[in-house]
């Protein structure tokens, strides 16, 4: 598969949120605004690309029986590095995303790509796969966050265009499920994925 195809695959055909339905917990919880969704997506992408590359490079030296613990240690190391960096340079974003940053460790997208792709493919291909899936996740979370922010608070990327409140339910949990469900339907209709 070409490198370009590896990246676009994560955006459409294997979109983690709209097609594979992976990583639903951070998807529903952090997308209260477009910025939050984008922050969560980029944070996951950072971990995904680096862990994919390291796992792909070390896979030949890891015995099969301790494969999962090894992957988890590698992923957890990158998540903790990300936590330190966010705490130091983007403290506001770190506070908003809160618990969901350490929880990237158990995000099934990251471990799923390590198991399904990175441990059988080259470092470069794994990096492209990480970028593709990461971009797909970021894009989906940003769109979902944008929809919820427009309906729920009458603003887009923090820019307020309607005075007063929106439909508050969309900022809360029920709105997350509703908006996600309709986005999945629309996404699948457009891309004709069954």
């Amino acid at each position, binding site marked *: 598969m070409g490198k370009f195809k590896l990246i676009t695959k994560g955006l459409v055909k294997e979109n983690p949120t709209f097609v594979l339905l992976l990583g639903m917990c951070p998807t529903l919880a952090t997308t209260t605004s477009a910025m939050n969704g984008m922050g969560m997506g980029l944070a996951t992408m950072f971990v995904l690309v680096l862990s994919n590359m390291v796992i792909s490079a070390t896979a030949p030296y890891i015995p099969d029986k*301790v494969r999962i613990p090894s992957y988890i240690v590698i992923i957890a190391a990158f998540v903790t590095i990300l936590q330190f960096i966010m705490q130091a340079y983007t403290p506001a974003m770190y506070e908003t995303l809160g618990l969901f940053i350490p929880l990237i460790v158990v995000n099934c997208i990251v471990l799923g790509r390590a198991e399904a792709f990175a441990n059988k493919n080259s470092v470069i291909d794994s990096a492209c796969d990480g970028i593709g899936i990461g971009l797909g996740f970021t894009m989906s979370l940003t769109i979902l966050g944008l929809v919820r922010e427009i309906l729920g608070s009458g603003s887009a990327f923090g820019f307020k265009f309607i005075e007063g409140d929106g439909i508050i339910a969309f900022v809360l949990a029920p709105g997350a499920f509703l908006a996600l469900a309709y986005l999945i339907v629309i996404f699948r209709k457009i891309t004709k994925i069954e």
Partner: protein
Amino acid sequence: MAIQSSLKNMVLSLGVICLVSSGLLAGVYALTKAPIEAAAEAKTNNAIRQVLPEFDGAPELKTIEADGRTISYYAASKGGEVIGYAVTASASGFSGPVSLMVGITADGIVYNTSVLSQSETPGLGAKCTEPAFADQFKNLNPAATKLAVKKDGGDIDAITASTITSRAYVAAVNNALAIYETIVSGGVPDISAGTEAPAEDPAAQTAEENK
């Protein structure tokens, strides 16, 4: 393909991975330690600057022993004279503590308040950070104002449909004033007066929020 899963191989590979990971973490920790501390300090200092009139230099962190607890607060001075104190105080809101930085000038006036953290319902209780509500505590003289929401016979307008949050905010300001009294008098603070919002079934607010 992967190497054989013998005990030696497994111990060795996991050991090496853990060792390299922890080494890497230690390095990043050392690199980011100073910026993280600076970011936390900048946040506190910004909050203090917001709740007190202009002062010289950095506010001074002080502690006071009262009631067996250690309370820390910030004293700000201008021209060698203490002009005010910044006190952190919190009270239980609708879905967690509402934590405030309260600035009180040397003559006992609440200069301003700033929300440090809260997890109230967006669109309802979370409005306590907005000026429409928070500005009621600007230049407020505790001697001339009854610090309670109007529903409880006080002078503070509660946020529509978020009485519990409003009560928590008022209670936190009252706590801060109690701490201020202690700082000034050096005595024992009467924090119990405003710690808890008046007891009311939380379901009552849920019903209220649904209106």
